């Protein structure tokens, strides 16, 4: 097996498809032309409305071995993927490949379909039970994980060809204009589904809020949508958005957030700066603290890219930021703002960060604050597996933000449940250290030696500065050296860098 640029042994083929080893960020330029979808026609007068999912599956001509896709804007409240996959299972299809943008714990109903042959593999993020089942070797073929925009790249270049995209639509009209800002299952943007709508051979919208033509605003347009199915419910609102996202009260996390805010203040805070917001505990606190600091200092940001929450919306409404780019909404305030405020803009994932395009929003962001399950002394970051080797999280936008932003902070506790987070080598490389600038813990920060400018800016600040190896030693002195995961040599998942090269693989975990 070749060794790639982050020192990992990676195979040259996954699922019979050749994959190049990761050669370094920006070292593998793209080749060829974009792929295309099937050309179809819709004569005037023919209805797109179909009564049931079973009927629509017949109409699109699904066959064994084909690829279907779903988006994850409904997150852990999604009913659509389970609904469609159970119908596919009932109809007796075999060897289906699923290419979701992400699956959540609610999608555990798909686990038995890995065992009974309905599904041969999943290419997409898997948060929770599906990832765990994959770790234990229950998937027939090898899972492939891509970042959010890496997935769009793969769709655009034909690496993933979607036969049928099933798009959960919180609002739809009978001719296939869709949005996510209205209806009982409102989720905000439909950004994750836009590439699917453009590149799939067949596009099916599934809605529980059918409105008279034309639906408006429009996120996905009618000329890309072949069928509309109206069902009782596409999701559970309590799993889609949070009623009240609260700032963490954990003193450790708040300490990390305060250090991160101070680093941003010293290195990047100036009029017109921009940052990536998120909904994780530390990220939310940093957004709030930054907002307070900007207000105090009279600083205005040019844009925030999100992961949008009420804290970002408040900043927009207070005039602390000119524009909000929105790929995902996390609460009701964010959805309302997207619907009503013209400066709150829905961003297609291709625009957000497809590396093989003429430039994404991430390239224009100054500061990104990200989490991790592990970080190592080469600044490599793992967000996919836990230290026991189990695959439990997707890549999300981690790679995009790290590669694009001028200042990438990884905010992590030094250890969790007495397992070191800062360690000699990460279990899985999700993001290579060359695009990670600072690791921020409750004990202080370690700056990547590549970034002397940051180190210089932080001298004399209130943030204790560490050599990353000393930070690791501190973690080991408290918790002891972490045990190796108990794995076999069977590869169960591939982790791609956003350009499609192979960054790492995940090995099968032995059951106790």
């Amino acid at each position: 097996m070749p060794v790639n640029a982050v020192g990992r042994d990676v195979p040259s083929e996954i699922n019979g498809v050749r994959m190049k080893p990761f050669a370094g960020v920006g070292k593998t330029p793209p080749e060829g032309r974009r792929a295309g979808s099937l050309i179809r026609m819709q004569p005037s007068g023919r209805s797109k409305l179909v009564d049931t999912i079973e009927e629509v599956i017949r109409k699109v001509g699904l066959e064994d071995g084909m690829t279907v896709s779903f988006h994850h804007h409904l997150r852990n409240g999604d009913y659509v993927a389970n609904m469609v996959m159970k119908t596919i299972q009932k109809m007796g299809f075999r060897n289906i490949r699923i290419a979701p943008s992400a699956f959540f714990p609610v999608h555990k109903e798909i686990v038995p379909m890995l065992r009974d042959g309905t599904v041969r593999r999943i290419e997409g993020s898997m948060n929770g039970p599906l990832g765990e089942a994959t770790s234990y070797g229950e998937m027939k073929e090898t899972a492939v994980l891509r970042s959010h925009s890496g997935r769009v790249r793969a769709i655009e270049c034909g690496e993933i060809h979607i036969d049928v995209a099933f798009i959960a639509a919180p609002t739809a009209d009978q001719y296939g204009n869709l949005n996510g800002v209205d209806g009982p299952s409102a989720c905000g943007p439909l950004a994750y589904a836009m590439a699917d709508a453009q590149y799939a051979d067949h596009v099916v919208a599934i809605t529980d809020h059918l409105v008279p033509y034309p639906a408006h605003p429009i996120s996905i347009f009618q000329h890309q949508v072949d069928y509309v199915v109206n069902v009782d419910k596409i999701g559970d609102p309590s799993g889609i958005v949070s009623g009240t996202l609260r700032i963490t009260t954990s003193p450790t996390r708040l300490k990390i957030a305060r250090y991160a805010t101070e680093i941003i203040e010293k290195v990047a805070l100036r009029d017109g700066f921009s940052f990536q917001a998120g909904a994780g505990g530390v990220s939310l606190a940093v957004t709030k603290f930054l907002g307070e600091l900007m207000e105090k200092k009279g600083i205005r940001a040019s844009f925030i890219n999100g992961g949008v929450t009420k804290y970002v919306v408040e900043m927009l409404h207070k005039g602390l930021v000119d524009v909000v780019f929105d790929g995902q909404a996390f609460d009701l305030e964010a959805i309302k703002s997207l619907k009503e405020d013209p400066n709150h803009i829905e961003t297609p994932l291709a625009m957000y960060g497809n590396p093989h395009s003429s430039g994404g929003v991430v390239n224009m962001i100054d500061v990104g604050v990200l989490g991790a399950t592990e970080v190592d002394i080469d600044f490599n970051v793992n967000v996919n597996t836990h230290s026991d080797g189990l695959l439990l999280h997707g890549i999300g936008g981690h790679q995009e933000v790290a590669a694009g932003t001028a200042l990438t902070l990884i905010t992590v506790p030094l250890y969790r449940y007495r397992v070191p987070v800062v360690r000699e080598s990460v279990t899985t490389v999700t993001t290579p250290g060359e695009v990670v600038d600072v690791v921020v813990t409750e004990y202080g920060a370690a700056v990547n030696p590549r970034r002397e400018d940051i180190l210089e800016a932080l001298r004399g600040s209130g943030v204790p500065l560490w050599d990353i190896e000393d930070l690791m030693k501190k973690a080991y002195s408290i918790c002891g050296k972490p045990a190796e995961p108990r794995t076999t040599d069977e590869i169960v998942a591939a982790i791609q860098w956003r350009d499609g090269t192979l960054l790492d693989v995940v090995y099968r975990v032995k059951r106790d």
Partner: protein
Amino acid sequence: MRLRRTRLYIPGNNPHYVESAGLYGADAVILDLEDSVPLDQKFDARILVKYSLQNVDMGRSEKWVRINGVDTPFWEKDLKEVLPFCDVINLPKVESAADLNRVDDVMGAIEEEHGIEKRPVVPIIETIRGLMRAEEIAAHPRVVALAWGGEDLTADLGIPRGKALILDHVRGHIVLAAKAHGKQALDTVYSNVSDMEGLFEYARRARYMGFDGIGVIHPNQVEVVHRAFRPTDEEIEEARRIVQAAEEAEREGKAVVSLNGRMIDRPVVERARKILRYAEVE
């Protein structure tokens, strides 16, 4: 004199809290062997605290241990295990100088045995009897600061804690007793950990009452209390002008300090110096 604006209480029987106690920048960390430790865990907590004091990095925080009171069978064993490794002994339910003398004897013997410096004591006055003897307690040479607790006092008086108007008098009494002997005065805790505005007001009030610090029971309270004890911008500006005038007078060999035509007394200069010390800490 060492700053003691915040003293963070950490239950001595909880390793998770103990190991991160030094991270939050409290002026002092108190590893507690008394009220937060159930009777059947006194032994385990004592050993955990003993080894934590030796192995856990407490950062810039002074290391205190609240041992059990002299009315319990635990205090001597507590002292024997922890005294060599801590900076200050926090002694609850002190009612007289005699209580302090008993503790002083045992501490002296341990200090001699280990060849270590004398450790200071911060007694906690929690009863009416103790309050009435606050001055003799403050006068004891081991004592560097007086702290107080309200639960037993209000129970003795039969008044609900939140409505006990007499506590303002108690606070004043503690401050005056401590200051009469040049010791620090430390206020009790603000127990609503989610009310940061209330905490700020409480700490500000303690400061203007003459206290040098308050107790904190959650790490998130530390920063708020430090902010409350930081002199205001106006206070700092005025103090700067006073100290500057005093320095000029000294240079010019003048006996009287004056600012804007007003005479400044010596205590005013001392207070101004203290304000600048507090302001410079952050």
